[in-house]
């Protein structure tokens, strides 16, 4: 069949395509399945990354998050009425707030309840993730936030017995009281999800019927506002603050001293820990996708190259018969079409199926639409792209096979291996040959340079080391409350001196520190929380991240997160304004993590001496006590004190809790990396005998014994993994150090990583010993193959 006219050419292409399909459909299908699997996993990971990273913004949209959230004490009704009419406000919804004492719990507890208008529903309406919304007509129904549901065990159907506080009760918060308001029994009907809770949006929400029934005991009113220009918060803040000052003059509030009005911007104030988690997850998923993608490409590429090489003689015949290179490539690409379809469909299917995966880690708590959420565009587009890539790679492999036999050109190999090997390695020819092949060989006849295997292995080792190190650091943080300044067994809110004195005298208390916390203003007007610590008994530990604690009234230790934010280091000076407006310079002596008390953010506080506190505090300090008890006595002390005092067992700050959900992630990533990179490495090592069959045969011809051939392949394996370890381990540790410092600082704790020396040593050992063991298989195979055969084939 000499090919001349176009129709003959078409017929020839079709005939060759049919023949190729008949001969190679199994092999093509196998490669296509690998492609579909790897591609599907990559697409799934991309989809999951999108779902994870978009969870928070989607929840913001789903709940129609308010731009401004303000609360006003209920003894300032005129100020309250003015808030929705302030300039720039485009829409508003309001609710009233109650404080209630929870009856029948293990310790004294107060609960904020919000209830009021359900309309307009396009401002700040939480997503119900379990149960249902409150019936507007029912005064005894509430929905609770997921957080409080988890912390206090309020499930759907739970009943809460409450006694509401009157305004009078609220005004006696500091001296103690029994609530005088009405009793109410409410039932939890739903669990709600919201990007941000707290202050003006209590964790417990009731409906209009509740609001109407208990209207006269409400302690504050909340407004959820939509601004005309969501970014124009400065104008609003100024107007609000003018109105607040005016109200302070015309209707002074007593309630405000205990339940102060609040102003927040939920759309702008995103907890940095959320961003950190988002980024950590994105990096983790990208790495995962990259590893799977590269692993898949390697296998598919090698498979297609092998198929191409097998078809080389057929191509020569076709060329002699007059088929152009383009026609030969077209025929083979055509033959790969069904397999490409399989790859595309499988990839699409896996990518769609990945829609069942919820956002990863902490971000799952922001998913507004839990359940199946496939990204059809990604699945279909990705499937098409996979099929196209498969065809392209087939065409490429065919083209490569059509080229005349390649010969490695170039000058002498670089001198590094030479000088290193000169003295001792040449003594043992297996070392010379094995190391040379590892560094200069190729992964396939026209495949990647073997150096790529070494680099890939180094990257994988670095990734694994970084992952286990970050994982170990995360685990250490989560398991060591002292690192987030929660080493105390119990936390007493509003610690009054008689109670503290009694605790100090209690033999079960081994150590006790009281803290006084207040706010201060920096000279550029920023409001910061400051705390002074007084060790009343024993040696309650202070969590120092670096440097030392302040020793005089001119010194300060800064929370790690704040230090990072303000760019403060040891020796720098933080200028603070005293209550009279006078400048107080404070020299930074170190970074310290302080207990978060009831509201502070972790790592954002200043640690001052008591003298310095007196100089700079703007309001009456709040006193808390942190109690360390003898082992096994915490529950008893808690049980006794809880009857009369607001006391809490150890609390995990929000930002640390976010990380708790991530603890498994680095380990998972390390595992996936190990699996994919390990499979790739094992594949490279197992096929090393076939790849180097010619060299091994030549080596035999020169008189190498089977043992020397085996040794050469062992050296080849060693020369691949040893440089990978030498480069990968320090690189991984460096990456982990940077990464963990970033994470820890955002969370607000000390940034020193926990290096799992044992695990890393084990990884290195397993990689090295494993590679040498794996090399035994090709070594035996090579020693068994007849060199004559290999030379004839090569």
């Amino acid at each position, binding site marked *: 069949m000499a090919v001349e006219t176009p129709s003959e050419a078409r017929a020839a292409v079709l005939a060759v395509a049919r023949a190729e399909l008949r001969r190679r459909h199994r092999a093509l299908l196998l490669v296509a399945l690998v492609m579909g699997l790897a591609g599907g996993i990559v697409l799934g990971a991309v989809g999951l990354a999108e779902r994870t990273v978009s969870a928070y913004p989607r929840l913001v949209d789903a709940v129609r998050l308010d731009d401004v959230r303000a609360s006003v004490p209920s003894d300032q009704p005129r100020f309250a009425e003015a808030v929705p009419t302030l300039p720039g406000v485009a829409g508003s919804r309001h609710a009233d707030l109650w404080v209630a004492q929870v009856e029948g719990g293990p310790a004294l507890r107060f609960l904020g309840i919000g209830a009021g208008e359900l309309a307009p529903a396009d401002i700040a309406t939480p997503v119900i993730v379990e149960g249902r919304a409150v019936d507007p007509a029912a005064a005894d129904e509430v929905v609770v936030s997921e957080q409080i549901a988890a912390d206090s065990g309020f499930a759907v159907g739970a009943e809460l017995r409450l006694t509401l506080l009157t305004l009078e009760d609220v005004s006696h918060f500091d001296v103690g009281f029994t609530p005088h308001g009405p009793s109410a029994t409410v039932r939890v009907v739903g669990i709600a999800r919201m990007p941000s809770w707290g202050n003006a949006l209590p964790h417990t929400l009731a409906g209009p019927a509740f609001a109407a029934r208990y209207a006269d005991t409400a302690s504050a009113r909340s407004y959820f506002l939509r601004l005309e220009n969501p970014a124009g918060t400065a104008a609003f803040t100024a107007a609000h603050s003018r109105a607040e000052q005016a109200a302070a003059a015309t209707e002074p509030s007593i309630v405000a001293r205990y339940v102060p009005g609040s102003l927040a911007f939920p759309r702008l104030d995103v907890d940095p820990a959320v961003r950190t988690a988002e980024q950590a997850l994105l990096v983790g998923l990208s790495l995962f996708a990259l590893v799977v993608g590269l692993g898949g490409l390697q296998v598919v590429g090698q498979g297609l190259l092998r198929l191409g090489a097998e078809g080389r003689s057929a191509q020569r015949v076709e060329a002699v018969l007059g088929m152009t290179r383009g026609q030969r490539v077209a025929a083979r690409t055509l033959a790969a079409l069904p397999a490409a379809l399989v790859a595309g469909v499988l990839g699409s299917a896996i990518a769609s199926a990945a829609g069942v995966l919820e956002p990863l880690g902490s971000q799952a708590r922001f998913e507004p639409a839990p359940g199946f959420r496939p990204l059809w565009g990604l699945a279909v587009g990705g499937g098409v792209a996979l099929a196209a890539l498969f065809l392209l790679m087939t065409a490429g492999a065919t083209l490569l096979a059509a080229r005349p036999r390649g*010969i*490695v*050109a*170039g*000058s*002498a*190999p670089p001198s590094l291996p030479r000088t290193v090997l*000169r*003295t001792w390695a*040449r*003594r*043992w*020819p297996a070392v*010379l*040959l094995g190391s*040379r*092949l590892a*560094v*200069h*060989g190729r992964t396939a006849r026209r495949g990647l340079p073997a150096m790529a295997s070494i680099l890939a292995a180094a990257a994988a080792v670095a990734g694994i080391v970084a992952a286990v190190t970050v994982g170990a650091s995360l685990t250490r943080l989560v398991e060591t409350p002292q690192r987030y300044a929660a080493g105390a067994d119990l936390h007493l809110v509003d610690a009054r001196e008689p109670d503290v004195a009694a605790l100090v005298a209690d033999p079960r208390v081994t150590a006790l520190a009281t803290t006084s916390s207040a706010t201060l203003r920096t000279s550029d007007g920023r409001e910061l929380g400051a705390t002074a610590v007084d060790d009343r008994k024993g040696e309650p530990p202070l969590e120092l991240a670096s440097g030392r604690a302040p020793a005089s009234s001119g010194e300060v230790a800064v929370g790690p997160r704040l230090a990072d934010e303000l760019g403060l280091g040891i020796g720098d000076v933080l200028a603070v304004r005293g209550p009279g407006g006078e400048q107080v310079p404070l020299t930074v002596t170190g970074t310290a993590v302080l207990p978060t008390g009831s509201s502070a953010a972790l790592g954002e506080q200043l640690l001052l001496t008591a003298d310095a506190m007196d100089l700079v505090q703007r309001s009456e300090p709040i006193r808390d006590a942190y109690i360390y008890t003898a082992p096994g006595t915490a529950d008893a002390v808690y049980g006794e004190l809880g009857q009369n005092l607001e006391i809490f067992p150890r609390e995990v700050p929000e930002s640390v809790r976010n990380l708790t959900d991530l603890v498994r992630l680095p380990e998972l990533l390390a595992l996936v990396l190990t699996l994919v990179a390990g499979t790739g490495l094992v594949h490279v090592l197992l096929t090393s005998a076939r790849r180097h069959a*010619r*060299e091994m*045969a*030549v*080596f*035999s*011809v*020169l*008189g*190498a*014994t*089977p*043992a*020397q051939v085996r040794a050469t392949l062992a050296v080849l394996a060693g020369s691949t993994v040893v440089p990978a370890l030498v480069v990968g381990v320090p690189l991984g540790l460096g990456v982990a150090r940077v990464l963990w410092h970033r994470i820890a600082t955002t969370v607000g704790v000390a940034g020193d990583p926990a290096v799992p020396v044992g695990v890393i040593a084990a990884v290195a050992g397993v990689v090295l010993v494993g590679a040498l063991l794996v090399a035994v298989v090709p070594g035996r195979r090579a*020693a068994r193959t*007849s*060199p*004559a055969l290999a*030379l*004839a084939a*090569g």
Partner: protein
Amino acid sequence: MSIDQSARAALAVRGVRKTYEAGSAAVRALRGVDLTVSDGEFVALMGPSGCGKSTLLHLLAGLDRPDEGTIAVAGTRIEDLGAQRLARLRRRHVGLVFQFFHLIEHMSALENVALAALVAGARPAEATTRARDLLDTLGLLDKSGELPGALSGGQRQRVAIARALANRPTLLLADEPTGALDSDGAAEVLDLFQRLHRAGQTILMVTHDREVADGAQRRVRMRDGRMLADDEPSLVHEIPASLRAGT
């Protein structure tokens, strides 16, 4: 042929048979080959494609084992040796040259040659010296640092020959050493073989090329796995003697 004569010969092959199982069909590649190559002889082995020349060479180099018959290389019977002993025999007694050179592409010319000496147990310095001397002799000293890819076909084949000679083998086996070369390259290689022959090297060279074969001292022919009569049987016993006298 007496046992004494076989013992003195560089190579003595008696009744060698080799059958390959290719799928269901058995290919009888060698059907009783007899061949003696005396010390210092330069023999050209000719024959049509598929007659078993390469198969025979592989058996002689101990890369494969005959089904029947005996092979003695430098007086040592090799057909029953284990892999280890065969490897040792190759180091000391056999140098192999191929049509497609089979150099290690990632090693310089010098290293390719030195590797062979190293395998045979030479110390690195000694191996390097020997490799350099050989390349010098073969006119390739200026190319010793080059990778094979940077050399011409003829140069590559000369490096391969240097490698085969690195351990001063009793027997140099060459399988179509000029098959991949142009006429200049072929002439270079043949010239080299003749020089080696004059220096006393025993050579058995497979070739399809009449002209190349004419450059050898003796020509033997194979067909269908058997030896045909020598072209110049009368010379067989004379030349080695004269050669020995000459060296």
